[in-house]
């Protein structure tokens, strides 16, 4: 995902494997204290991640849904990528990387499916019916293809290209609204599922999209706005995400770094 990290008041982070999720920083959202993450894991799981990454957060949510203990390792992407990250993901050199018994699994949605398959006795994120699974994979793929890229264009660009990004974002939200319909979660009968985990990490980014795009999610896609609120209260999600303000500040730092504005 991000090839560099903010210079700001972030956690000082080293890539020390003994260091748990950086809860020592006082400017962290207080609900972000994954109690599982600091234990040396009996499930032998390590997650190489970056605090604000929505892709990393999908994995954190899945691990929490499954009550799987793991070691969280913050990759200080500004200081340069750690040896372990480069060795674990030599092709893309990106987080998140899940290490299970030392063996790497890469790509957030692939990691989530891996967790379903490697830990079959834990609550699964994909449903069991093949057709429902196909629908879930389709919609997770849709979120993957569309949301982050379009959102990035919203805050990176100006003028006509930004207007274009805004129009696309509204289209994306309306399409997802239609898919969600009156369901409590995208997972429908299954409950909180694969698509919910895939899309939930973007909910703190809504405020930034709204500011840059000058629209309100609650007006454009009220069911999505309601879903975002519901999902934000779910424990696995609440403890994995950062506040919209933190995300907005992070975008500000990225813009400075890219020399935008």
């Amino acid at each position, binding site marked *: 995902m991000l090839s560099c990290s903010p210079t700001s008041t972030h956690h000082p982070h080293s890539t020390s494997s003994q260091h748990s999720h950086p809860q020592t920083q006082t400017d962290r959202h207080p609900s972000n204290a994954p109690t599982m993450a600091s234990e040396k894991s009996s499930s032998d799981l390590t997650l190489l991640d970056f605090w604000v990454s929505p892709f990393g957060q999908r994995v954190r949510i899945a691990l929490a849904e499954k009550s799987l203990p793991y070691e969280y390792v913050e990759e200080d992407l500004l200081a340069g990528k750690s040896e372990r990250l480069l060795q674990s993901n030599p*092709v893309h050199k990106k987080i998140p990387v899940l290490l*299970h018994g030392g*063996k790497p*699994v*890469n*790509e957030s949605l*692939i*990691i989530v*499916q*891996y967790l379903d*398959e*490697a830990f079959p006795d834990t609550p699964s994120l994909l449903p069991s019916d*093949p*057709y429902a*699974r*196909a629908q879930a*994979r*389709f919609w997770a*793929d*849709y979120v993957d293809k569309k949301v982050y890229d379009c959102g990035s264009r919203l805050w990176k660009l100006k003028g006509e290209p930004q207007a274009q990004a805004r129009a696309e974002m509204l289209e994306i939200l309306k*399409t997802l609204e239609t898919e969600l319909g009156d369901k409590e979660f995208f997972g429908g009968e299954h409950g909180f599922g694969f698509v919910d985990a895939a899309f939930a990490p973007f909910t703190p980014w809504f405020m930034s999209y709204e500011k840059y795009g000058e629209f309100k999610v609650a007006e454009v896609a009220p069911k999505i706005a309601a879903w975002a609120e519901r999902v934000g209260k779910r424990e696995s999600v609440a403890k994995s995400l950062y506040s919209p303000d933190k995300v907005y500040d992070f975008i500000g730092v990225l813009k400075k770094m890219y020399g935008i504005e």
Partner: protein
Amino acid sequence: MAGGDELKVLGVWTSPYVIRVRVALNLKSLPYEYVEENLGSKSALLLASNPVHKTVPVLLHGARPVNESQVILQYIDEVYASTGIPSLLPTDPHERAAARFWAAYVDDKIGSAWQGMLFTCTTEEERAEAVARAVAALETLEGAFEECSKGKAFFGGDAIGFVDVVLGGYLGWFGAVDKMIGRRLIDPARTPLLARWEERFRAAEAAEGVVPDDADKMLEFLPTILAWINAPKSK
């Protein structure tokens, strides 16, 4: 027509994404009806089945559509999982993750280079740049092949698997591009394992009649596709 179990594929004969689905259905000896779509004038069935992306392939199982080729591949693996019918994905979770990873890599790197070299380039320089990207990705895939195949014939081992059909879908176009640029994308000197893999894949029964081997025919069809891509968007 009882039971609603019939399989139908909406496709375009040159599409790597359609070809891979057809090879997979052939591998599993699953009969299906194939419908060639004109993307310049999309059928009502296509638009109703894939309202989000409005593209091929679409798999219809009975009346129910499944969209996105890699989603379709996993769907048919899961629905038709039984002894005797080969599975595309391996059984071990870590190997499955590796197969999904490489399939995603193929569609990301090869897919975007393929689009660049045929459909979006406006100059020969741009085409050459896209070709270079494809060749670089193929060199990475040569290493992946060595890792995944463990000395056997395919990424999937003894039998054609997930990564094989995903990459194999592009072979028809590779042949056409080879003709265009006067050299092979899968160069036996640079990527010898993949060159031999290509021969084996093309020779497989499941690929017969589905993986195009007439480069001229594909190049003749290219203007049709460009016209589809460059047509003003309909409402």
